[in-house]
């Protein structure tokens, strides 16, 4: 199973094995990680599952949809070139080793 490493706002790293097809958000919520709220549960309606993707992985991800890009324009924490909504990132075998970091605030 692909492994995703999450960095919580306090710097703690948590590596999880996720089912291919699951979202990066789902993995974090199931494990009860800090730094993510995911209020809308993956409907791309709230932008509270914002994460920073490790730059090395950025171009291996599917480009954000127009909806996601619009949501990202007004996330609560600083928006960076590596900002993505974790509910829109689907785990695949090619993403084995992906690292994402949660910001200090989501709302």
């Amino acid at each position, binding site marked *: 199973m692909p492994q995703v490493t999450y960095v919580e*706002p306090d710097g703690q790293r948590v590596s999880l094995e996720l089912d291919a097809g699951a979202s990066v958000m*789902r993995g974090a*919520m*199931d*494990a*009860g990680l*800090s730094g993510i*709220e995911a*209020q*809308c*549960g993956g*409907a791309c*309606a*709230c*932008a509270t599952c914002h994460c920073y993707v490790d730059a090395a992985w950025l171009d291996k991800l599917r480009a954000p949809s127009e*909806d996601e890009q*619009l*949501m990202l*324009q*007004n996330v*609560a924490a600083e928006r960076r070139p590596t900002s993505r909504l974790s509910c829109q990132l689907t785990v695949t075998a090619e993403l084995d080793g992906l690292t994402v970091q949660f910001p*200090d*605030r*989501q*709302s």
Partner: protein
Amino acid sequence: MSASAPILIVGAGQAGVQIAESLRQEGYGGELLLIGEELHPPYQRPPLSKKWLLEPGADHLLALRGPAALIRRKIELRLGQCVTAIDRSGGALQLAGGARLPYSKLALATGSMPRTLALPGAQLQGVFALRSITDSLQIGAAVRRCVAHNLPLVVIGGGFIGLEVAASARKLGAEVTVLEGLPRLMSRVTAPIVSEAFERVHRAHGVQLVFGAQVVELLGSDGSVQAVRCADGAQFAAGAVVVGIGVVPNDALAAAAGLSCDRGILVDDCARSSDPLIVAAGDCTARRLPDGRLLRLESVHNAIEQAQSAAAALMGRERPFRSTPWFWSDQYDVKLQMVGLSYGYDQVVTRGDLAAPAFSAFYFRAGQLLAVDSLSRIQDHMKAKRLLDAGVSPTPQQAADPNFDLQTLLQSAPGPTGGAA
């Protein structure tokens, strides 16, 4: 009553889970029990009328948190347990079956239940309300039977649940009639211009909308529903009926224990009930506003926000409700996002394309922005949320001018008031 007894949370839905999680974030190190009446582990309800109705899947895909999350936070989950009474003087809960659970402090997150039709025929087979996973699965199966037998689905109530079910049923191929008692859709929460847009969308997708419909009876044969009859004599054939006429807060447990209730457990801005040892959050509550009005919000955001306040209050800290309420609904390809409370508005201006529909309705009172409903206008919603959180209002002219960038108002304003959760 014992200070070493656990904190008990009654209700394992969105609010209950959040209270438990926030208590740990607030530094509570004692024992923590989350007591749920349903047998399913804590799950999300919003998809039940949307994606889940179309494609039900494994339960864990709906989970609010996985088992690992509860273990990590040392939250003990007790499912299938019905709390029958709160013994406030003894500091304990009474459970069905006779068990007693002492508490040091108590949180109530008992949710709400669908309002029922008190009409002849309401108990017939094939008449549904939507609250639980089981309800959603049953409605999905009934809609598929309607499609297979070429029978229409009748939805009673043109609010969020009714319209989301109608949209999902159309996607599944069912013929759908929506009966609404008032002259327009979602009239309790939106301006006519938003109702009209959704009216066009539903009609374009082939839904029959009937306004001013006073349902008086459900007719059936062999115990199964076959038609809905209205006061004017109109009769609508039905293979199944979904009733979506609002919810009633589950405040009976609190009321029986003598807590102040008024169509919900009364709480202040910090989610405190009339008992200093008891807090409440989510659909089961009613909040007294400074102007004396009672506010009931039934939404994920409200459950989370009040739960965070409730957890802080249990730890003796004041964390008033602070971020602007928001809500969403998906119907066909239209993404509705609402932020703020439009109650008492005296002016509505729109930005965007009304016909698409891809526009936002900005609600003002005395020139001050109260709320914004965005239909497939994510950029407006996100900016409006930040404006309302920051207490910054555009003028109605600025809101209506598509060439005016609302972002410019944010750049001069302080950051959003909501802190990190």
